[in-house]
């Protein structure tokens, strides 16, 4: 009995091999259709998983989205925070690192010794100095000779465009800052135009500003750039408020709300596009495969003529389809993942991380499509072998 089954099984595989090898052209065509489907499935699924995560990183182009200000203050006029507050801000999130920038604001007299011009201006002590909100790029219309540098040492400063215009300051100009009896000097390293309040300010190192104000270890505000999806940012803010009860944690609503809206739009668009493309591609591959399958009347007729039971014949063809689906899926999905890596690189400049889960999903879907498209062969069960050979059916 076992012997018979073994022989049967050996025969089954032998027929299968022959079926696949019989027509090279057909084999190639089927693998092409299935492989193309699998490639696009794998590429889009991988991109879909990766792009959503990447989008949240993209949104950080808007700069800081959370503020820490002293409790009860209206902006930053009254009250300061201890500088050590920032040590209590959790820095690592699943979406990436939180960027922290602390600042101290004062209104003092700034003068240019060279020309004798002086003006009362807002001076912001920043740590780290030169942190980019939006972009540092000076507008093309403002002036073409503005140089750009990230100041690192203590005695350099960054001047806002309007501030520089009022004082006639150029990159390299020396400035003197006086606050009652305290004096500091600095050299303008770059001039920037942001369109925001930074345009009216002079930015210096935090410790210089603290010396000028006579407020050692005090800051007026902390700006946080929190990565992640809008939901994750909300959770982070709530958590931070619990950890720092003596500080007001405020989302910058312009960006947190705008981002939430745009994020849901973009991810919805991406999901819907990928869904439609996958569905149609599956149907398209299925139609192409069915087309090939119903051509095989001759094969079915012959098998039935020499005594194959309908069930066995159908099983043979289903096994063939599954094998083809597996092969096409494996090749296609590998290509698709390479494709998505290239796409990720082209769009976001960083290669998309291949997700292992995508690979079996794409191969499984391809096999499913291949098997489903072999099902019309069931109809051939009612075929009369004789009429096939006479060429009637």
């Amino acid at each position: 009995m076992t012997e018979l089954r073994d022989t049967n099984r050996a025969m089954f595989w032998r027929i299968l091999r022959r079926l696949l090898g019989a027509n090279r052209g057909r084999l190639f065509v089927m693998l092409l259709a299935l492989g193309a489907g699998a490639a696009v499935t794998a590429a889009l699924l991988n991109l879909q998983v990766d792009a959503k995560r990447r989008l949240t990183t993209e949104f950080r182009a808007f700069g800081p989205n959370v503020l820490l200000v002293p409790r009860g203050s209206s902006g930053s006029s009254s009250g300061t925070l201890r500088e050590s507050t920032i040590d209590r801000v959790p820095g690592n999130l699943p979406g990436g690192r939180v960027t922290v920038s602390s600042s101290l604001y004062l209104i003092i007299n700034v003068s240019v010794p060279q020309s004798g011009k002086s003006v009362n201006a807002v001076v912001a002590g920043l740590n780290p100095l030169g942190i980019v909100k939006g972009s540092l790029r000076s507008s093309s219309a403002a002036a073409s000779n503005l140089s750009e540098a990230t100041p690192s040492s203590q005695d350099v400063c960054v001047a806002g465009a309007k501030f520089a215009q009022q004082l006639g300051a150029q990159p390299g100009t020396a400035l003197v800052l006086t606050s009652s009896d305290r004096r500091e000097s600095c050299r303008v390293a770059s001039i920037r135009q942001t369109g925001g309040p930074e345009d009216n300010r002079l930015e210096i190192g935090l410790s210089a500003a603290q010396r000028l104000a006579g407020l050692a270890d005090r800051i007026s505000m902390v700006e946080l750039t929190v990565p992640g999806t809008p939901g994750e940012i909300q959770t982070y803010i709530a958590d931070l408020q619990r950890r720092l009860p003596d500080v007001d944690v405020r989302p910058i609503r312009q960006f947190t709300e705008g981002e939430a809206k745009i994020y849901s739009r973009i991810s919805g668009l991406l999901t819907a596009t990928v869904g439609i493309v996958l569905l149609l591609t599956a149907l398209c591959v299925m139609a192409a495969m069915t087309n090939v399958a119903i051509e095989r009347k001759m094969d079915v007729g012959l098998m039935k003529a020499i005594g194959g039971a309908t069930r066995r014949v159908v099983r043979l063809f289903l096994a063939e389809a599954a094998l083809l689906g597996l092969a096409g899926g494996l090749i296609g999905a590998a290509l698709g993942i390479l494709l998505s890596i290239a796409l990720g690189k082209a769009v976001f400049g960083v290669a998309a991380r291949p997700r292992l889960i995508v690979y079996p999903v794409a191969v499984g879907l391809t096999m499913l499509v291949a098997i489903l498209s072999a099902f019309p062969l069931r109809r051939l069960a009612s075929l009369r072998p004789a009429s096939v050979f006479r060429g009637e059916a």
Partner: protein
Amino acid sequence: MFLRLVADSFGRRPRHKLLTGAALALGMGVATAALSVALDVGDRLAKEFRSLGANLVVTPKADSLPLEIGGVDYRPVNAGAYLPEADLPKLKTIFWHNNIMGFAPVLEAQVKASTYPKDKLVLDYRSVPTFMPVLGTWVNHEVKLPDGGTFVTGIEKTNPWWHVEGRWFVEGNNECVIGKNFAQKNGISRSAGLLTYNLDGKPGPTLAIVGILDSGGPEDDAIVVPLSIAQELAGKPGQYRKLYVSALTKPEDAFARKDPKTMTPPEYDRWFCTPYISSIAYQIQQELPGTDVRVIRRVAEGEGQILTHVEMLLWLVSLAAMLAAALAVGASSAASVIERQVEIGLMKALGAGSGTVGFLLAAEQLLLAFVGGGVGYALGIVLARLLGEKIFGAAPEPTLLVFSVVIGLAAVVTLLGSAIPLRRASRMEPAPILRGE
């Protein structure tokens, strides 16, 4: 005879042709849907990005340096320059006036105010210790345009993240909205009213509080009133200090970053006629003399970067989808030729040349391509509409470009798919094929 052969081929194998046609239609449906969405997405998303609010700010050129910390200006009252409100309708006369989605002028003032319950007035303003910031602006303001039309705009367009509990004030009604913190600190509820006094202590208008503003910014500590009331309180009739403009723009590219002064005339025309944020800023500056129009870089550049990336992503997705559809359709038409070797052999045995056979099969495939491509286009447009309506609430317009691309793609793919097996078939001798070898 030729037509009869083609018609016969369709009549004899209807199932087969139907399936090839279905594969074609589905594949081209993918291509159409993906292309339509990718073509349309830039404009739609640019509109979505306006939920970030204004991307341009206009200030007086001759202004003294604002002493602004955390959104509060510490300059002495009356310092600095102002701009005339009467010039504002000109904003909608610039070349890209349709891209100006909204604008709102802002004037700050300081008042002393005391509250009164609706029934009982408390007239002693001296009990209020400090001056309070007042912000005058437009809400649902109707601007009369020079061409006779009207344009409704206001702070709700430029700062869409401001929420009002209750309702916004109606202009001309002596109403106001107070900030969340202001209300909390002073224990004022929405049913109260405000009695205002300007800087000299002279009584100003009495305002009914109709809403509580939650802005998440310094406005939460202020009283927000219609611009005309702020002008009266500040003694600056017909003037404003700062203007926020929200404009639909095209993401900046390398060309947009060139200095307009160094451009050649044709380049300048191209720059002027493209809705780059820099060219819109330039046009506004031309219309409003004595102003300084600055791009809010934080908004504009973040927006530009994300928009470019998302657009590119969708283009690549649609390209990948088209490629897959093309391969599947090509495979389908290749299969339909491979299975017809007997037929080809018979035709050749009866004296048809390779050219005639090829022509016949190509005609069949092209017919299928046009029918399948047409159906696929219709299918794709319906899907793109559904997608657009669901996500953006607006359907993409069907374009001739997509139609011609799709039909052309269908024709090329089916011809290429059948050309390779056809060449192999035409090289074969008819006799072995007919013998079934």
